[in-house]
């Protein structure tokens, strides 16, 4: 899994209300939700300015707060290729692996990336390269069970197989 794009930086404790405000939760349509991605965050113009493939880079505890799966759905549908953060909130982490938004943990990578840097994330090699500053960082390996979920195609595909559907 390799991703390349411009980095959008966010601070600590970005909660799912910031990612998708509750006023938009009367729908679960990914395209609709994507329009409002990060609307109540520190970058409310995110959807006006981002390009497909861009990468969200955030401080600790990304995705905290509400369990709303609408949050990773919106991020993925907006065209963000992956999220790199120092740490992820638990339910958000689960949701990402379940529905297929690639996420990676790395303290040093987040510290070594500024807004607008061109970066490349190599999930298999476990490396993030900042192409703007020419520096490389390691990312925490994806736990084996989470790898299984990704390889299966997400939790529902995994469950289908297990349940013989």
């Amino acid at each position, binding site marked *: 899994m390799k991703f390349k794009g411009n980095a959008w930086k966010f601070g600590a*404790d970005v909660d799912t209300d910031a990612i998708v*405000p*509750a006023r938009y*939760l*009367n729908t679960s349509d990914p395209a609709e939700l994507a329009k409002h991605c990060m609307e109540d965050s520190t970058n409310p113009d995110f959807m006006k300015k981002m390009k497909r493939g861009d990468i969200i880079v955030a401080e600790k*505890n990304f995705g905290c707060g509400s369990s709303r799966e609408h949050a990773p759905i919106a991020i993925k549908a907006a065209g963000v290729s992956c999220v790199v953060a120092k740490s992820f*909130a*638990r339910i958000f982490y*689960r949701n990402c692996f379940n529905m297929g938004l690639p996420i990676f943990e790395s303290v040093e990578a987040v510290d070594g990336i500024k807004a607008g840097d061109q970066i490349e994330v190599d999930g298999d090699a476990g490396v993030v390269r900042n192409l703007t500053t020419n520096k490389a960082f390691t990312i925490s390996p994806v736990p084996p069970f989470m790898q299984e979920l990704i390889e299966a195609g997400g939790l529902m595909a995994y469950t*289908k197989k297990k349940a013989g559907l």
Partner: protein
Amino acid sequence: MPMTITEKILAAHCGKKEVKPGELINAKLDLVLANDITAPISIKEFRAAGAKKVFDSDRIALIPDHFAPNKDIASAEQCNLLRRFSREHDLSLYFEVGRMGIEHALLPEQGIVAPGDVVIGADSHTCTYGALGAFSTGVGSTDVAAAMITGEAWFKVPESMKFIYKGKLGKWVGGKDIILRTIGDIGVDGALYRAMEFTGEVIKKLPMYGRLTICNMAIEAGGKNGIIEPDDITEKYAAKRARRKYKFYKSDRKANYVDVREYELTGMEPQVACPHLPENVKPVSLLAAVNIDQSVVGSCTNGRIEDMREAARVIKGHEVHPYVRMIVIPATQAIYKQCIKEGLVDIFIDAGAAFSTPTCGPCLGGHMGILASGERAIATTNRNFVGRMGHPTSEVYLSNPAIAAASAVLGRIGRPEELK
């Protein structure tokens, strides 16, 4: 090997003699729940997988509580998805408007969750039921979709943190203040991925409603679950409500905790979480200069009859400040009726407060009390991130019911003692 209560419950539900933190397990679920904003995704995923049957039509609870009674057409469509799916699959635990309540108040009240259970819910405050001595945790909609098919969920066994509360609670200080103090201490990710086990002499004496409040907010510290060992208080509560057999688990004396924290609560003031993080906690006396526009008493955190009584006791004989709107929302129909019976509704209305049918409503910025730009609310709810209750420039302060009621009268954040 000695185990914590969380480890014991998980071990029992995956058929193992013992489990260790870090271990991956597949647990059988006693209950799966979702609401009107999370179930639509679950239902879509369930159908897309080609599933034809739910694992058990008596163990899936679908509750329209967030944007219900239907907030708008789109929300009405979402509620219809739940309604139709429940009929199609003959779900006994679908609760229609007029017969529902806020999920995390309704389910314990109705004995649908019980001590020793493993429960997952597509709602972050599913951790509430740990107050009954159950393992209960929030998950996403897709987890619930998979669980509706298999009746199981995967978990990584969490490490446990122990929180010991000592001393004596002052007047107007209760479960909400205890958990706010704790989150203020460890931060919004201080318990990330961990089980929060709440104990100590204060907890042992704390009535069930206070325990439910505490466990409700375990998620605000990033906790996987919050849990309180069951005891006589639990037995009294469960015995007259539980719809099925239940089991008490207790932590072994020599069980391992990754962190143990003690709090001396004697002399602690009521606590208030300030914008825009639940960890931004201050004692109420420091906030007397903060004017408010709205006061909300309700939610899965503090919408129970004891919370209603506390707010009523404070506001009785007083009037809501002319610049404030106060909105009181009992969490279930039974609590609503009890409020009428005890004369609390008269007290609220005579004071100039609005009294509403059960709903999550304003807590998540849904309806029934949204904030305009620059407005400020004090609320007995559980989160105060940017935009939580309305406009992104609005502000939310979190408190217990007594403080929310006193503040409604004063027009600023304040204490019952300040009301003449």
